[in-house]
């Protein structure tokens, strides 16, 4: 009757949803929890009376990947205005007010569900990462209201019982069976839809060997025909290394004799990309369970139940684990896990002496490995006009140090390093539906074709490379302008030779800018270069209706580029601040201003 759904890109919103689920269970309520896209929609009619949605916002105010299907359904115009009038709704948005489309996803969901007849259960919440209270501060306030609205007497002692409910997806080991040796090839044997297989043709470092960052140029050749466009991404499915899996197994000695027996998972276990075949405990841990991610609050909320408190040490450890799962002192978990980027595996190893994790709970307890998305850096068009099977990527290897002595390595990074030339690899192509020409151009001619201004520091170059290759291969008359930023010309100017070559052939207008070449350079970043070229940029946008495409790491870059463009419009177009801002907003609406940041 109570349904908790989440839309989550990084797992943050999911954590709040799962945390709330567990909290409600303490108060003897029986909520169902699922990703927005995993919940059978018909159950909204047949099962749901109270609907609680937790959702973050990604991209340009869009919904996360695991909620697109849900949105697509509720947006149908044919749905009547009392379609969901049997539902009481409350929503919690996980957002960041430094983005112009602050909490847009939850706003969209909430508004639409109200249009479809939902009543409000209680006040809703738009949490702001930028606020001094953080998302947690918003959550606790909202949770209190939700609990009250559900008739829970939070004050009364007897209403709450901290018991762990049965696992939703119970893992059962078939102990009577013989051990199975699961071959490594199951990595390519997943049940997920639209998965493709290919071979890595190249995995080469393209930054100088003395450069701080290892950036790889990866070339994949698909086994089958593929179709993609500039702006599309691919999902890769990383797996744990055997050593980490072994460490986890050793930490739970009672798992060891069971590790290679076949197992079953009850319910409908969900994981993006689907489960591999012939599951055993060992292969489940290797291919699906994310032990390298940072442990979240909802993880500790289940974990502390498994701590044996019969000894003094155990009692103390249990108390600590429980502390990590509460909001009493929010810094506690942050300082232990998030700040030093401690992994789940490391946390378990620290507490292993008194931890006894029942096998049945493994799927419920641990987060699942999520596919990693990368922008495609190549074009699908062959010189001959036919389609090729190549996909190229530009991937920055994630390696850094925190207070923890051991170097932090991204799970995907570590795994990708093992994918040397000749290795097989599984992937999925995700459509972005970005358009880099407008329908008005027919027939396209050099005088009317819309120019494209590309702004991309660092590995943001990936989709630009795809776009440039595509436009040149298809003899597009659209003039191309590339503003590329990096540290040093000799160290991390990706594909510099290619761009210079195209510049010479008059196929590309290339504006590189380096931040570490000269100490006191005035022009360091892409936004500086844009201002330097204000007249050109302003005229391209105002007179030639240029499309602006920005890609790179989020944070200050996209914001500063935006401010810079408003300045340019003011200067060149004699617009006021307000007019300039509106001009950009209109461009954005007309899809002439495209921003892909991560």
């Amino acid at each position, binding site marked *: 009757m109570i349904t908790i759904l989440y839309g989550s890109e990084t797992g943050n919103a999911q954590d709040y949803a799962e945390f709330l689920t567990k909290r409600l269970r303490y108060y003897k309520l029986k909520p169902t929890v699922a990703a927005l896209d995993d919940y059978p*929609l018909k159950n909204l009619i047949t099962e749901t009376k109270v609907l609680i949605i937790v959702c973050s916002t990604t991209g340009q105010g869009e919904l996360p990947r695991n909620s697109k299907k849900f949105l697509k359904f509720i947006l149908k115009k044919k749905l009547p*205005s009392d379609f969901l009038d049997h539902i009481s709704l409350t929503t919690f948005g996980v957002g960041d007010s430094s983005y112009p489309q602050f909490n847009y996803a939850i706003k969209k969901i909430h508004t639409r569900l*109200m249009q479809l007849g939902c009543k409000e259960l209680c006040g809703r919440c738009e949490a702001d990462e930028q606020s001094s209270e*953080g998302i947690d501060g918003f959550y606790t306030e909202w949770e209190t209201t939700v609990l009250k609205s559900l008739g829970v007497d939070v004050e009364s002692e007897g209403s709450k019982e901290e018991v762990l409910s049965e696992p939703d997806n119970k893992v059962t080991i078939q102990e009577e069976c013989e051990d199975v040796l699961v071959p490594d090839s199951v990595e390519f044997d997943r049940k997920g839809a639209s998965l493709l297989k290919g071979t890595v043709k190249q995995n080469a470092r393209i930054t100088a060997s003395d450069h701080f960052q290892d950036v790889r140029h990866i070339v994949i050749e698909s086994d089958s025909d593929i179709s993609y466009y500039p702006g599309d991404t691919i999902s890769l499915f990383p797996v744990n290394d055997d050593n980490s899996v072994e460490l986890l197994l050793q930490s739970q000695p009672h798992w060891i004799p069971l590790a290679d027996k076949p197992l079953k998972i009850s319910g409908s276990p969900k994981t993006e990309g689907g489960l591999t075949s012939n599951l055993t405990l060992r292969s489940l841990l290797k291919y699906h369970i994310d032990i390298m991610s940072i442990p979240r609050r909802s993880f500790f909320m289940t974990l502390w139940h498994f701590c044996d408190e019969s000894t003094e040490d155990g009692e103390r450890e249990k108390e600590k684990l429980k502390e990590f799962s509460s909001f009493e002192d929010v810094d506690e978990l942050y300082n232990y896990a998030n700040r030093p980027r401690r992994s789940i595996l490391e946390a378990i190893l*620290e507490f292993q002496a008194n931890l006894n994790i029942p096998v049945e709970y493994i799927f419920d307890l641990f987060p699942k490995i999520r596919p990693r998305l990368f922008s495609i850096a190549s074009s699908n068009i062959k010189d001959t006009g036919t389609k090729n099977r190549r996909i190229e990527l530009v991937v920055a290897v994630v390696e850094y140090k925190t207070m923890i002595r*051991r170097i932090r390595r991204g799970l995907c990074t570590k795994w990708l390093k093992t994918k040397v030339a000749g290795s097989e690899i599984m992937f999925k192509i995700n459509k972005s539906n970005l358009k880099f020409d407008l329908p008005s151009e027919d027939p396209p001619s050099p005088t009317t074709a819309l120019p494209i201004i590309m702004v991309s520091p660092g590995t943001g170059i990936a989709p630009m490379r795809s776009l440039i290759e595509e436009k040149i291969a298809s003899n597009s008359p659209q003039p191309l302008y590339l503003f590329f930023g990096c540290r040093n010309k000799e160290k991390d100017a990706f594909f510099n030779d290619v761009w210079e070559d195209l510049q010479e052939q008059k196929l590309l207008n290339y504006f590189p800018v380096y931040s570490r070449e000269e100490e006191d350079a005035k022009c360091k970043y892409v936004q500086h270069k844009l201002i330097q070229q204000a007249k050109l940029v302003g005229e391209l946008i105002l007179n030639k209706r240029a499309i602006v495409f920005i890609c790179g790491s989020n944070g200050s870059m996209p914001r500063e580029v935006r401010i810079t463009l408003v300045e340019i419009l003011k200067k060149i177009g004699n617009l006021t601040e307000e007019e300039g801002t509106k001009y950009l907003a209109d461009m954005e609406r007309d899809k002439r201003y495209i921003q892909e940041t991560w």
Partner: protein
Amino acid sequence: MSILLLLHPTVVANEDQTDLVLTTKQQLAQQYPNDHIVQQIMDRVANKKVALDDGSFNRVVYLNPNQDKSIPVATLPVLSDLLVAGGSIEGDLPSDQDLDVIMNGLLIDDGVWIKPKYEAVQLKKKPVASTLNASSGASKSGLVGKKLPMFKKLNKPSTKIVAAPAPALTDSNTNSEGEEENSMKRKLQETKLSYFSDDDDDDGMDDDEDENDDDRVVEDELIKESDKFQLSTSLITPRSCDITKKKRRKACKDCTCGLKELEEEELNKQSTLQDSILGKMAQSATLEAMKIEERLKNIIKFEEKDMAEIDFTIEGKTGGCGSCALGDAFRCDGCPYLGLPPFKPGEAITIDSFGEDI
């Protein structure tokens, strides 16, 4: 009895269609010589601009020469009410609104809509199901016979709902009771379920291009709508942080306030501390090794006193808290061991267990 001839507004507006009205009227008069014919414009009837008595017509004939034959759902109950039991609606009717018609308690027989007589038994024999395609489920469980709920009027949408889609399935004001209510609920549920196509729950759906984008609400419109909804009035915000006394310790991604530098400095300091501890450990290991040479290779045995010794390298630190060995979860702020794995006094640990990166 009487016949109501309903005219679509365009019929009256176009002079060249007056003939059409006349012919229709003549035909009706010939066909039903005993009946009185009343002529009205559809919109006026639908909006109750004209006073017509409920249950006063045995036949409603709709004249609509336009391509679009659709009738607003809210109008259906008005028309139904005008009919006597057993009366019918015929003429230019839409063929794609069967579900709406059924939901309004009317039956469909060969393109004619019939208001059922209250004697349910005989009507059950009517081949209703065959006229309902996908949604036959809704008809089977007996829509006939009972008073059906009233419907929301289209022209009085609640002020909040602006872009909301037209049709409505229920009127929340209806207060039917008991069994009847349950059966209504079930029926309503079935009707609601008819809005799901099979692929809505399909896993593999990435691109069902058969559905037009025009059939969907534009996402951005919802943002504009959200203002009209005054969503902000129901917003929950955290109580001021002055009360909770919690301060933010995490630097923003693009920190400019200096917290990031502070964090980095702290990190470097910690690293230096760790280096010094590891150095001492190595030294201690050498000493130990010299003492017990062959017996222990590569293994260090920490005694309580060794640890204390190492711990004293930190200014202002007494090493007396006893938690340092327990791991980061239990270590104090500024503990020199932060970032190193837990260890226990008297327990043998190898340098290896510190991992590959030392």
